[in-house]
């Protein structure tokens, strides 16, 4: 049980304190940009890049007040996004994400993801930032996969044979919200079942030991 808790603590951000299913952050991106696996992966990759840039900028601006740090970090991320789009290196990025691209560079989730940069040592803060991005990507991948399968019967644009008709409504935001709600509840249930299993196993071990010594 203790080992399980310690493992969760070490990987905080992926399962424990997941930015989407536990902290309720990044919902616009999780709901809107998760209509296909390709979009989900693009958004996850972009958030990862923005978080690393934001982390480094926030680390450099530690001496400033919180308001200025927030503004300058977001501004640098937005300018970097504009520069990437202008360079034409990733045309697919703007085609798929549209207005959510600059928003991903300046939002509450990014600021929360990079917050450890101000409080912890460089290594620990960077690890937590990366884990939070991985947690976001994990949720995005699961959501995108389910929605793409239901909406188009495809995975990464490759057709998959599934029984039943395609349901175009799964691409609507309402379905994204509902699916995310069930995903968050599912994650909690798995955590509770795992704890219950570990507790019951922990109770069985002393009982077996007592039986053996009699």
């Amino acid at each position: 049980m203790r080992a399980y808790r310690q493992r969760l603590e070490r990987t905080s951000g992926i399962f424990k304190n997941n930015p989407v299913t536990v902290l309720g952050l990044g919902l616009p991106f999780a709901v809107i940009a998760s209509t296909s696996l390709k979009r989900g992966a693009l958004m996850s990759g972009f958030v990862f890049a923005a978080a690393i840039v934001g982390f480094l900028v926030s680390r450099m601006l530690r001496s400033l007040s919180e308001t200025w740090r927030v503004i300058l970090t977001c501004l640098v991320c937005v300018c970097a996004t504009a520069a990437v789009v202008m360079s034409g290196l990733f045309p697919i990025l703007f085609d798929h994400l549209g207005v959510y691209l600059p928003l991903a560079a300046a939002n509450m989730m990014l600021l929360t993801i990079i917050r450890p940069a101000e409080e912890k040592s460089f290594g620990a803060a960077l690890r937590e930032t990366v884990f939070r991005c991985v947690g976001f990507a994990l949720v995005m991948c699961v959501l995108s996969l389910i929605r793409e399968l239901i909406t188009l019967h495809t995975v990464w644009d490759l057709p998959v044979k599934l029984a039943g008709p395609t349901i175009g409504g799964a691409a609507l935001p309402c379905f994204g919200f509902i699916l995310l709600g069930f995903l968050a509840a599912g994650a909690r249930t798995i955590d509770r079942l795992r704890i219950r299993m570990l507790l019951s196993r922990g109770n069985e071990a002393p009982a077996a030991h007592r039986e053996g010594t009699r």
Partner: protein
Amino acid sequence: MNAFAAALSALAAGIVLQNVVLARALCTDDPLHFTRTYHGTLRLGFATLLVTLLATLFAVILRRLLSPFSLWSVLRWPVCFVCVAVSFFLLLHLPAFRIGGQFVRESEPFLLYVAFNGVAYAIVLLSLANYAVDWQALVYAFGCCVGLTGAQLLIHAGRERISLSVVPRSFAGLPILLIYIGILSLAIYGLVGHQLPT
């Protein structure tokens, strides 16, 4: 008459058709922490309205000046963000927040949140992208703020009722709220008449 119809259309688009919360999923970040009362929700809406309208006004003026340049399509992102930041600072130092009534004074703490949680920035970007006519962009931004406040009030009312009901442990808190927002969003889509599969 045409102007009136255009204004009404922009307003309806902002309030219902493209509702920032229920159709675009904006301002749903951290929904459990910021609006615990109806007054808090109204203050959030008021702060959003102030920041967004001022930022849209600045952005519209800058669009007139900078749109002839070819880079405007991408430059508008940082420009709009700067407009939001400038509006935030202007409002923060506005004497009205010191001498105004209790409602106005208590709206001040929400300014930082609404300015940088992405919602004001998103509304400014959408207003510029959707409307080429300046005053229509402003009306649309106003409609978005009204729609946001209405949606947040609906969410808060739902949350109050959910807190009085027995909810399975796994669904308590954020999951049930997300499902409730999803059902509200579905209701909006039904109202608007989007083509849902039968």
